[in-house]
């Protein structure tokens, strides 16, 4: 069974500082979502509230029709793994920490946990505090996957993993998602590497939801136009310009949104060079702070 997440008017404040402003979004279950945004854009605040780690300062976070915070019916079906773990006591061995997880988490899959520990080559007898950063992340990922929670969230859980461990984690995540559809949210900066896993992406900027779209739609969203400066400026007038660069008389402009037929025809007639924009570039320019030159 998959659970739908509904966030309405969510605000998260830390004293005077506002991390999330009036955020509303509906996330139907059974999909993999990518949560993107720069550091400080509110990703961790959002995920923490979704997991019931933090009470909303205002607004509501509802999963399967019920508020999340301090609701045992929901929290046991939700799992958030954060960078650096926090999934076990540093003085416990890996084996003991797995025992603790098994006894606390209803739905824990002990066999799957054992498989993952083998896969990530984690030393069962070593204490959590003695693991390397990569091993800690791999152990946290193990807990996140073996918890088999209907809503599984990973907040930069890949940090510290080397490339091959990261790959193994992603493959396992995808395999398990296919075998047991559920809601997965992954927050990451590795847009190029991880975005193929996502069905939809959410981008946060300065505590607000900038966009929520199908990944494949986003891939089709950017267009770059290159040609004589004046001509380029004419064609892109009125469009959302993400970035522009000028080299001598030639100007290159990145716009957000597909070109309509009239503009495309005008651009082609004027001999402009049209090209697509990489998701990573779209992401970088979309999430630029509002104060920066646009």
């Amino acid at each position, binding site marked *: 069974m998959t659970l739908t997440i509904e966030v309405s008017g969510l605000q998260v404040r830390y004293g005077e500082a506002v991390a999330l402003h009036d955020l509303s979004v509906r996330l139907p279950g059974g999909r993999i979502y990518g949560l993107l945004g720069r550091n400080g854009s509110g990703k961790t605040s959002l995920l923490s509230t979704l997991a019931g780690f933090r009470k909303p300062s205002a607004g509501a976070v509802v999963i399967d029709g019920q508020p999340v915070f301090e609701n045992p019916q929901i929290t046991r079906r939700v799992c958030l793994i954060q960078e650096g773990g926090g999934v076990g*006591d540093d003085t416990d061995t890996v084996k003991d920490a797995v025992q603790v997880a098994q006894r*606390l988490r209803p739905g824990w899959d002990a066999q799957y946990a054992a498989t993952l520990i083998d896969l990530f080559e984690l030393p069962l007898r070593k204490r959590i505090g003695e693991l390397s950063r990569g091993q800690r992340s791999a152990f946290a990922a193990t807990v996140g996957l073996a918890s088999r929670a209907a809503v599984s969230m990973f907040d930069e859980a890949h940090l510290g993993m080397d490339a091959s461990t990261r790959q193994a984690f992603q493959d396992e995540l995808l395999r398990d998602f296919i075998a047991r559809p559920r809601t997965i949210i992954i927050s990451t900066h590795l847009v190029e590497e991880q975005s193929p896993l996502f069905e939809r992406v959410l981008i946060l900027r300065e505590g607000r939801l900038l966009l929520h779209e199908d990944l494949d739609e986003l891939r089709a969203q950017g267009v770059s136009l290159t040609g004589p400066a004046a001509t380029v400026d004419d064609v892109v007038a009125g469009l959302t310009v993400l970035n522009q660069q000028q080299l001598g008389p030639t100007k290159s402009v990145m716009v957000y949104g597909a070109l309509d037929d009239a503009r495309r025809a005008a651009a082609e007639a004027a001999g402009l060079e049209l090209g697509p924009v990489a998701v990573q570039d779209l992401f970088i320019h979309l999430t630029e702070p509002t104060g920066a030159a646009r």
Partner: protein
Amino acid sequence: MNRPARRWPIAYLLLTTHLPFLVFCLAGLLVVAGLVLGGVAVFGAVRISALDVGGQLLRWLALGYGYYLLRTMLPMVLVHGRTRREYLCQVPVFQLITTGVLAGATTLGYAAESLLYRAAGWPHQLAEARLYSDTTDHLVIFASYWMMLLGWMATGSFLGAAFYRLRAGGVLALPVALLLLAVNGLSNGVLSLPFIKLDLLPQDLGVPAALTLGAASTLVAVGLCWLLARDMPLRTRTS
């Protein structure tokens, strides 16, 4: 899983894994007390109960462990899908049982020590004025230790919650904790902290009144801990 494991998973987990550890710590303490006793017996005259001196260290164990329960265990339990309410309801149950077991084991220690002292011909006296009148006042020894350990563990948890939630602001909780421990001290004699020694003369108060005050201070500690922890946000990198 059996029934208590399903209904009280947190208390059950702690009772089956942490209680044995704490009993192990107590056993270690007894061994150390025994060694010191041996040393004193060789180089001087034994006059007072070694356990009555060493047993006082137990409260520090209780305080530190209570702190750990909130500072380290609570966040971990939340990560595994449990709620603060579940934890804060089950932990006092665990604390009540655990401190009872530790107090019981200590009382047995006093009884065993009496036999040893009698065999060796040493006088078995208390180290300081206590709520219990002598080393054979077993019922009061048990009650006094239970109340002491429970109060100190609950106060430790209160401090754990304060330092987790308020970070450095947790120092504000220290005077409150000190007051709670002073009141609790009535149930076991004197409050002796490093640099502080209050002579509270519990005998003048009477056993029922001292235990009632101890229980009250424990309840206040549990209540304060609840207030701090019931909606405590988990610490995260704020990004």
